[in-house]
């Protein structure tokens, strides 16, 4: 065993058990400390709806809901989500019934390539949970954490504006 700079003997790196409510299901998992929530979802759980755009919290493509609040999964350690209620894009629909925000994105053609769309929709649902956006300008400002390189912003804003009133709290009460 090598020594760490503070003189203590190095311990082996160990996986940590965590328990999540993921899209309504109880999940007991084991994660290495440096695994991000985004990598856990995509690489270990095959939930590939959340996208890895920049992997630095700048684009918002990885946005998911933790206890009802929108966060960047790429800048979140999975081990720090122990006990959390998580909702990804895969968990928004009720069976075959799309979430009102998903329906609005289709109605308003609020995407082109679609890569940013899962993050946009999860972010918009988080926006609805916050209850702070009351007009188009506020929606625009409070959706600024989600970039769309196709530039579908006008239609995204129209979709969010239409669906906001129909969104009830999703993903657990904060």
């Amino acid at each position, binding site marked *: 065993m090598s020594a*760490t*700079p*503070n003189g*203590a003997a*190095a*311990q082996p*790196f160990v996986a*940590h058990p965590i328990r999540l409510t993921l899209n309504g299901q109880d999940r007991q998992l084991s994660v*290495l*400390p*440096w695994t*991000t929530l985004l990598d856990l979802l995509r690489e270990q759980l095959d939930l590939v709806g959340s996208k890895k755009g920049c*992997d*630095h*919290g700048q684009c*918002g493509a990885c*946005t998911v809901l933790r206890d009802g*609040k*929108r*966060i*960047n999964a790429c*800048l*979140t*350690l999975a*081990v*720090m989500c122990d006990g959390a209620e998580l909702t990804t894009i895969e968990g928004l629909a009720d069976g075959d019934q799309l979430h009102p925000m998903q329906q609005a994105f289709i109605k308003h053609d609020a995407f082109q390539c679609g890569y940013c769309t899962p993050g946009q929709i999860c*972010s918009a649902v*988080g*926006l609805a949970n*916050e209850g*702070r956006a009351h007009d188009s300008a506020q929606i*625009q*400002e*409070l*959706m*600024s*954490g*989600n970039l769309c390189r196709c530039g579908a912003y006008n239609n995204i804003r129209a979709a969010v504006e239409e669906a906001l009133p129909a969104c009830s709290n999703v993903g657990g009460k904060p």
Partner: protein
Amino acid sequence: MNPFQYSKPADVHEAVHLSSAASRFIAGGTNLLDLMKENISRPEHLIDITGLPLNAIEETAGGGLRIGALVSNADLAWHPLIEQRYPLLSQAILAGASPQLRNMASTGGNLLQRTRCYYFYDATVPCNKREPGSGCPARTGLNRIHAILGASEQCVATHPSDMCVALAALEARVHVEGRGGARVIEFADFHRLPGDAPQRDNQLADDELITAIELPADNLARHSHYLKIRDRASYAFALVSVAAALELDGDEIIDARLALGGVAHKPWRDRAVEASLIGRTVSRETFSDAAEALLQDAEPLQHNGFKIKLARRAIIRALSDAAVAGEQP
């Protein structure tokens, strides 16, 4: 990201006793994990402090507020007592980052953000802040976003926080706890100028943890304004920002606070300039004089000279907007 040990202590005492020079505390992680992905920060041990009981916003006996270090930036900005008594702080927080990041980032962590200097973030080039003694490519390189005040030969980086600019203006106090006990640091003393030790952003010791931010009572809520100038309309760091707050009796200035962001290694405040405003009347000339005085020692680098003119105009506008804030239209 390098492998690391992970611990989640249940109280502050345990947290500070787990810490070492090779460990880092983690709460929101929005800056630390980013730095770890770039191999700028390589801690051997992360101490998850999100289980500590530091989540409350409480009224103090003196009429101020005590904000737990783990309160998220979003919860702080939208707390009714903050919106009502310290709207300057609310505005500054909401001018920074994105809604997702504000949901994650903690109050304590916001103070500990590292600079966004491109050279600091690029492990392939020298940087005195990252590797003391290696040099500063920003001084002669791409320095459009860099400091115009308080810089040194060693470092021209700026502090990136908006929240801290408001906290400086509001004369917040930083409560910290380490193995040797607790202490309180005046906000003006918390962050450092780079000098010849730019690797040190602030006065915290390795074992010290921020536990709370205290806001003293004041009469500045009515006439305050946070103005942020940046390269795009939202979700960008400040080129220049101004936290301005006035206490007025009619048109006469009773008290004044003025802090700048985006221009120095720490939120920039000059108490002599604030004092010079007291007793004067609200006017463009008064505010212009303050701007000139605050910027008299500003030194441009090759690409950031525009910041001096920009800061002068931003100060005048922020003070003017603060003076009319709270008035009926």
